[in-house]
């Protein structure tokens, strides 16, 4: 599921603080609907792939590059 979260953040363009998105927006997406994301989000934040500020999320550089890695 962590791959789906970072891929979704990349697709949504959440790559800096200005473009951060809410957890609710992620939860409303088709692929992540009805899933509990809090634990995965905490793990991704601890691993340095995402940042959470004021309830909103965005990808770090490492997170962005990891999200795109399967497409190059």
């Amino acid at each position, binding site marked *: 599921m*962590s*791959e789906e979260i970072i*891929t979704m953040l*990349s*697709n*949504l*363009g959440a*790559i*800096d603080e200005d473009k951060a*998105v809410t957890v609710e927006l992620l939860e409303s*997406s*088709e692929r992540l609907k009805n899933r509990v994301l809090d634990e995965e989000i905490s793990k991704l934040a601890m691993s*340095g792939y995402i940042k959470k500020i004021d309830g909103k999320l965005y990808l770090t*550089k*490492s997170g*962005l*590059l*990891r999200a*795109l*890695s*399967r*497409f*190059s």
Partner: protein
Amino acid sequence: MGDSKKSRADEQKLISEKGLRPNDSSLRVLMLTWEYPPRIVGGIAKVVEGLSKSLTKLGVEVHVITNEMPGAPLEENDEGVHVHRVRIDSPAPNFHAWVLLMNHYFAKRAGVLAREVGGFSIVHAHDWLVLPSGSETKNYLGTPLISTLHSLEYKRAGGVNSPEGRMIESLEWWMTYESSVIIVCSHSMKDDSKWKYQVPDEKIWVIPNGINPDKFKGSHSNRNEVRSRYGINPSDKLILFVGRLTHQKGCEYLIRAIPLVAKYHNARLIVVGDGYMRGELESEASRTGEGWRIRFTGFIPDSEVTDLMLSSDLMVIPSVYEPFGVVALEAMTADLPVVASDVDGLGEIIKHEKNGILVYPRDPASIAWGISRIMSDPQNTRKLTENASKDVEEKYTWDAIAKLTLKAYRKMLN
């Protein structure tokens, strides 16, 4: 208002009749790429950077349209290369919709840029990801399109088994159809492209990727100090892997080779890079029972990769598919012995027992043999690295590659 409408209409007519191109013999090239440093996802970023900088040295005016990256300026002159980073403001529900949006923004930027600079002689698109904007720019500006196919989906993904893969394949075919010239980086890529997309032989140019041979000159990293940062002793045999952690790169086979090597050598492995397989690979490392020998760094800055290359004993490239393998050239330039899978373009760069060691792909025992071959015979290894260094100087400098590319541009324009 009426006048500006009229002049816009005149401009459109002129573009459709003659194409918006420079009005002298100078070459102005527009590169389209989804990655350019510091946005380094795979090999394309470094290829476009190296080629563009060397083309600039040959008098070509190069503009690069690419994606934004946090921390990088939207407009930049990078050693003579005009880099235009595009912000994509629209969110997308999935990656493929995002790619189409990206292309819309690229095409829009290309149209505006063409008016600002007086048009382009050539549009050069890098891989399927930018084909829609390359095609649109070609047809809108009347500018010839040349494309580089950096790899092929059916091999990269280990088969095409999804709607997304089918879409990528159709874009690759469209690229070969729409472009006047296709550049590929190896003869195996040429054969694969001809077979897969029926591209006429005369339309494909094999132009290898390159490297700046001075990349490691002047680096003053202290081998022991670098090793200590990663908990590696001076006497340990340090094996380096650099690449995306994806199926294509075959890192799992290298990890499985470590217990075999560890029977005879005090080997340690550093895995540089990240990707969707990282968790799986970390578990695989633990399962070997020798996980303490293996360290994953994730993405690290280029300068840190340089330090590691200069402080390691050998590099292993265990890819199951590799149309070229720029990382092999980097190792060869750093005098780092290379053990590589005998696949595709990698098997064209590395000549067994001449400038490196080739091993069977997907075969941990063969990889372990190759590593031991390097570790057990320092004299032979020295010969391999000397030959590798010569090969780079003779065949793979960006200056030489840029001259070949310029030849392809001129031939297409004539």
